[in-house]
């Protein structure tokens, strides 16, 4: 580099050397705008199909430039986490920082390379736009700043949680997962973008965003308070919920190169419930109890999630509630259907204890229809809730299914649930085939596997179902863990016959399934009988669905009520055609804890409204 000394006085002629620029071309650009750089941050684009309306962009926007607009003609699908809200951008605020692009969970919002927008003074409305696939002026525009793995601001992977290895858990019924530690929970909670998809998709509309926020703040008591707003079975749901929230979670995205896992909402719930001492939870919950008594009495049949939730809600509002339970302990299917390794008994006990602490009275070992008749209840109580659940398993009705060793999964699980630890309550077969691909099938298979491991130190269980593996109703984790525990899963097989020799089951004959549904979408499996296989088994377990036992109603009532496909017909609010009778839970909706809880709330709401005279109770069903 040429050095210029301060002392140089310069020259009068030096500048004249630049007269050479007469001979040089100007460097002026063309008047028309140049194309911007490849990653230019110009006006917004939004892929309307990809966008799920989570409003995360709105939250990150530092200029409050984004308004969420409801676009009615778009799909609204809370179960899959799609709202028909779309971001509209105010260019009177936007600063084109592209944080919205970087934070977008789906990568729908992007910036284009278009940068010229000019309008007259009275056309300021054009500054407020609803970005779409095309640019601000409706022309095709190239993409500028888009989402890449490196500028993605969201933490896409779940915080790892400690759990037992398949070897360690294979022969016992200890709970598999450890649960989050404080740090892990806060880290996991911090991933949440507060979109509320979980809230919308949850059957009971738990305030997940709020309690996740509370957990992130380190305020677990607040979290628990939020949970008890909507769910008195938070211990249970924190472990075994079907977590539709996680399916709907904005972060549950496929198609991003960096991958994206949903927030572990269920585990966070479990963490918060475990982090607060039991007595403290009771105190927190008791705050919400109404001080005034209404004097109304309600009978609830069945101490499962639906019944107890209804009881909890009604007690909270000052009613007297009496719960009748046929079995010696409460919890219903959560106790008698879910194995200990998924839901330890003490969690359930704690939930029930909280509910009882609110003043719910439960009478165990009382079977309605035998000890007390429905008519009796009708006269003694202002309202009756039928929350009896689905106690018996459906049968495949294939030849041999009536054999005594062809058992239903529900029945076996109940037996297991009635016994402690190593005792099963029935003879453990050396080999078994489970028919069905749902969570119940996995539960019984894995329970049996544990017993087999204890007794014989080997696992010989086959789970077979007519669905393809991807379409199994069971949770992906369940399938993964089953496989880890040595269970064989054979998808796309239709059971044809239970092979019986000498009154002993020898195996199950199956055919390959070509298709499950016909062209109209009806269930009509097509089999390929050339591909026949027989799986050896000492016991065949059917886990293809459950049904309710409704004998307790008695003949008169059964005739009075309206029925629909073998279930009592109920209105949206759970009321039956009898004005004093409500029905809730699995017996109405099919098996699912959180649905049962939601049902419990609905029924309680309806009963409360009815009993306090806010709503005419007569002919509710017909009114709808």
């Amino acid at each position: 580099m040429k050095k210029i000394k301060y002392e140089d006085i310069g020259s009068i002629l030096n500048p004249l050397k630049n007269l050479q620029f007469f001979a040089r071309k100007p460097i002026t650009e063309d008047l028309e705008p140049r194309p911007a750089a490849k990653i230019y941050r110009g006006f917004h684009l939004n892929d309307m199909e990809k966008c799920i309306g989570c409003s995360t962009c709105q939250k990150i926007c530092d200029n409050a430039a984004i308004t969420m607009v409801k676009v009615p003609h778009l799909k609204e699908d809370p179960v899959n986490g799609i709202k028909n809200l779309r971001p509209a951008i105010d260019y009177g605020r936007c600063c084109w920082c592209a944080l919205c692009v970087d934070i977008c969970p789906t990568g729908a919002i992007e910036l284009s390379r278009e940068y010229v927008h000019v309008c007259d003074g009275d056309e300021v409305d054009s500054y407020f736009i609803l970005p779409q696939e095309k640019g601000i002026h409706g022309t095709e525009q190239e993409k500028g700043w888009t989402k890449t793995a490196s500028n993605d601001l969201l933490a896409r992977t779940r915080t790892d949680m400690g759990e037992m290895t398949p070897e360690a858990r294979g022969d016992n019924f200890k709970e598999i997962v450890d649960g989050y530690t404080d740090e892990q929970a806060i880290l996991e909670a911090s991933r949440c973008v507060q979109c509320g998809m979980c809230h919308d998709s949850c059957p009971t509309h738990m305030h997940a965003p709020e309690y996740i926020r509370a957990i992130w703040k380190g305020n677990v008591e607040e979290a628990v308070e939020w949970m008890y707003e909507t769910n008195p079975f938070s211990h249970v749901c924190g472990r075994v919920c079907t977590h539709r929230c996680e399916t709907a979670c904005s972060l549950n995205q496929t198609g991003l190169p960096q991958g994206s896992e949903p927030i572990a909402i269920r585990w966070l719930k479990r963490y918060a419930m475990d982090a607060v001492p039991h007595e403290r939870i009771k105190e927190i919950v008791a705050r919400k109890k109404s001080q005034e008594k209404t004097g109304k009495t309600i009978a609830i049949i069945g101490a499962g999630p639906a019944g107890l939730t209804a009881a909890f809600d009604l007690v909270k509002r000052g009613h007297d509630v009496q719960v009748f339970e046929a079995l010696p302990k409460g919890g219903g299917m959560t106790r008698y259907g879910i194995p200990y390794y998924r839901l330890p008994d003490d969690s359930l006990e704690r939930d029930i204890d909280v509910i009882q602490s609110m003043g719910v009275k439960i009478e165990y070992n009382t079977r309605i229809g035998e000890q007390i008749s429905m008519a009796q209840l009708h006269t003694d109580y202002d309202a009756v809730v039928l929350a009896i659940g689905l106690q018996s398993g459906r049968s495949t009705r294939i030849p041999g299914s009536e054999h005594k060793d062809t058992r239903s999964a529900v029945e076996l699980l109940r037996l297991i649930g009635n016994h402690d630890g190593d005792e099963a309550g029935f003879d453990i077969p050396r080999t078994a085939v489970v028919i069905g691909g749902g969570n119940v099938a996995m539960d019984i298979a894995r329970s049996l596997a544990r017993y087999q491991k204890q007794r014989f130190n080997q696992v010989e269980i086959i789970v077979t179902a007519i669905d393809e593996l991807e379409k199994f109703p069971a949770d992906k984790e369940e399938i993964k863990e089953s496989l880890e525990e040595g269970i064989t899963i054979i998808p796309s097989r239709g059971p044809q016959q239970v092979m019986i020799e000498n009154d002993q089951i020898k195996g199950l004959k199956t055919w390959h399934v070509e298709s499950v549904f016909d062209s109209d979408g009806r269930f009509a499996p097509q089999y390929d009988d050339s591909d026949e296989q027989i799986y050896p088994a000492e016991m065949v377990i059917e886990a293809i669905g459950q049904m309710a036992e409704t004998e307790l109603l008695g003949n008169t009532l059964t005739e009075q009520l309206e029925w629909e496909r073998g279930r009592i017909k109920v209105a949206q609010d759970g009321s039956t055609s009898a004005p004093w009778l409500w029905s809730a839970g699995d017996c109405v909706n099919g098996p699912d804890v959180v649905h049962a809880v939601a049902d419990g709330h609905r029924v309680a709401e309806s009963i409360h409204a009815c009993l306090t005279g806010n709503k005419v109770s007569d002919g509710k069903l017909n009114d709808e």
Partner: protein
Amino acid sequence: MNCDEINVWLDTLLEEINEIKVTRKSDRRVRVDVDASSLPALLELLKGKASYVHLSAISCVDWPDDEEFELVYHCWSYEAKSLLSAHTRIPRNSSEEFARYVSVYDIYKPAGFFERDIYEMFGIYFESSPFMEKFILTEWNGPPPMRKDFDAEAYVNETFNWAEYNPDWLQEITEEGGGIAIRPEDVRL
């Protein structure tokens, strides 16, 4: 004076000035907590004896919960290549118009600017500074805006209007039954 000497010197300082706490955060960053009454003496010593000739900044932090202002004097030594931040706390005097403290303009000239800034933004009157008049906020009549109890957003919403847009596409959507669902101010974190 090199780095080590200054460290030694700082240690002896502990004995000279009352209630002083020295924390070494790294090679080049020293934090000193000092009582408000001793601060000017400390700065005098720092400049005169310890080569901290450059006052980089004076920062003020408002701690309304403690009813205190924290003043931080960042001094840089070109020789020792270290930055000494002297923290002190003065009462907030919420009931009166100003909190009061002494100016260090006679020690460090740049203090004039920073003290004036703090005077405007936080309402701390620095005795004997020649610049105690408005500079940036000459046309502002409200309370000192940087105080935590001044809510800028509320003030703005009260004072200013916002543009109201009603573009065609929004009208169409409204006719369809949609429309604005969540306004940005509803989701401020």
